[in-house]
């Protein structure tokens, strides 16, 4: 599956009368209308049904890293337009829009931090940046992060949130799957732990590379995780999909993830896993 945003869907959203849009949020899972502040205070988790909303990269850092320990790397990697891709908009103007919306140069933020004292290299996908799609900049930043981890012998944690490949970079986007997997192969050989955290949604090319290569794979509750999108599967097999299909709990049942961890417990779980997994020196 590839990242996209259908104009139609955007329109529908815009036309929905929501006068108090800034104050109230509708839960994607239980459809409950909840006061935004309540969700924000609750780590972006629905108090009714425990659905874990997408969370901006910066807030994610605040949630897991020890205060003041995060140092960002490679802030200034910027995408080019290798295909000169243009649909209703040119690729560079889509990138610019996302940059303005998120305050980031591309769809992943990488750096080092400490988690309950444990040093870690962390990468966080920013879904609001073109659906967290895997372009050349994302691939390069993650590769550099992993190479630094090998150099410094510190564990890697990547928080995935992505629709998959970045269509606008064509085959070069696909090759980022091989590139990041190559770096992870080196990490594996160096016997440095890698924990992937799959958040809502983790699909397509990112699921079939970075996400599923964790030595330990953690999922957030109810996160959508899969290779093909549910719509494509439904159209292909012409049948209804099973209840809970491609949700974190379903993947746990099928042996595809190690554990599901609630956001409030994530920091501690990550720290203790990092500590127990690392090689004794």
């Amino acid at each position, binding site marked *: 599956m590839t990242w996209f945003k259908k104009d139609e869907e955007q329109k529908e959203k815009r036309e929905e009368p929501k006068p108090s849009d800034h104050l109230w949020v509708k839960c994607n899972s239980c459809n409950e209308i909840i006061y935004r502040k309540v969700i924000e205070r609750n780590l972006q988790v629905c108090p009714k049904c425990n659905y874990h909303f997408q969370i901006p990269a910066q807030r994610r850092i605040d949630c897991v890293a020890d205060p003041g320990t995060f140092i960002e790397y490679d802030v200034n990697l910027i995408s080019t337009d290798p295909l000169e891709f243009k649909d209703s908009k040119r690729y560079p103007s889509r990138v610019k829009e996302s940059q303005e919306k998120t305050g980031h140069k591309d769809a992943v933020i990488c750096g080092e931090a400490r988690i309950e004292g444990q040093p870690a290299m962390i990468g966080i996908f920013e879904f609001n940046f073109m659906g967290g799609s895997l372009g050349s900049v994302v691939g390069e930043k993650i590769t550099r992060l992993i190479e630094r981890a090998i150099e410094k012998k510190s564990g890697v944690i990547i928080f995935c949130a992505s629709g998959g490949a970045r269509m606008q970079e064509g085959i070069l986007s696909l090759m980022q799957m091989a590139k990041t997997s190559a770096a992870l192969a080196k990490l594996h050989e160096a016997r440095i732990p890698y924990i992937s955290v799959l958040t809502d949604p983790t699909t397509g090319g990112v699921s*079939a590379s970075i996400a599923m290569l964790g030595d330990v794979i953690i999922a957030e509750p109810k996160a959508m995780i899969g290779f093909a999108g549910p719509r494509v599967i439904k159209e292909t097999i012409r049948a209804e999909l099973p209840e809970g299909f491609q949700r974190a709990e379903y993947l746990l049942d099928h042996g595809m993830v190690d554990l599901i961890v609630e956001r409030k417990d994530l920091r501690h779980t990550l720290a203790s896993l990092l500590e127990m997994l690392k090689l004794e020196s």
Partner: protein
Amino acid sequence: MVKHYLEFEKPLVEMEREIENLKRFSRGNPLYFREQLKSLEEKLHRLQKEIFSNLTGWQITQLARHIDRPKASHYVQWMCEGFVELHGDRNYGDDPAILGGMARFNGRPVTIIAHQKGADAKEMAYRNFGMPHPEGYRKALRLMKLAELFKKPVLTMIDTPGAFPGVGAEERGQAEAIARNLRMMVVLRTPIITVVIGEGGSGGALAIGVGDRILMLEHSIYSVISPEGCAAILWKDGEKGKEVAAESLKLTAADLSRLGVIDEIVKEPLGGAHRDAEGMARILKEVVERHLKELEKMDEEELLSLRYEKFRRMGTFIDDGGT
């Protein structure tokens, strides 16, 4: 005679019929028609050259998927001797969408792994149109490990619309199976040559495509998404949009060569591989042999570090500095 033809091949097929007819008609008096036949054949050749030097992205996509285009099993048959097919992933089942086994290539044993689309309706259904399930990728992985253990080079052939999007495929870990292959192929301690022979559809293609050499037949395609899929998302009008998408995605062998993704474009016989399937296999065999010889000269460490560097370099970006 060709069995099926595409819209833009029609003038060629018509002219070929004309030549056939004239040949039949002139059987009693070949000398008398010789000049006429010769001029018709020259005309055909010119027309072929003209059409095939100006193909659009969409036309190349159609050629890459041409029903008569030689499939992986054809190349196994015409480039190798003594193929022994090996089945199963030792875990769940055997996936006919992936063809795998051992064969001799110019005398030396090699491991073959390929998407097999199927040559006719019956085989296509059996092979699931070359769209693998996780067990197909896990069979591929198992055979690559076998190749590594016994130090045999690996030849993979890519020809798939993509990994199969289905409930069972997801439940059994399609994403995990693909991801694991990517990571494993990078460090496999034996040479790997990958040839895109038809359609290279996204992650489902790449899962057997992390090679020391990536070659593409002249009229094959390799893309992050199908033109139809891309059109449905970005242009909505799937019918008209797919032609624009095929152009925009830059999915031809020439495009991929320009983007630095592939190592060589393998010329096809005039009119495409399906017009001279045996000729195509002869050409490909020579090219593969040349690359294999180069790779066999390298020691393992050199091979692996070059392979890592090859994929490490992929992508384009601007680095404006800072840590």
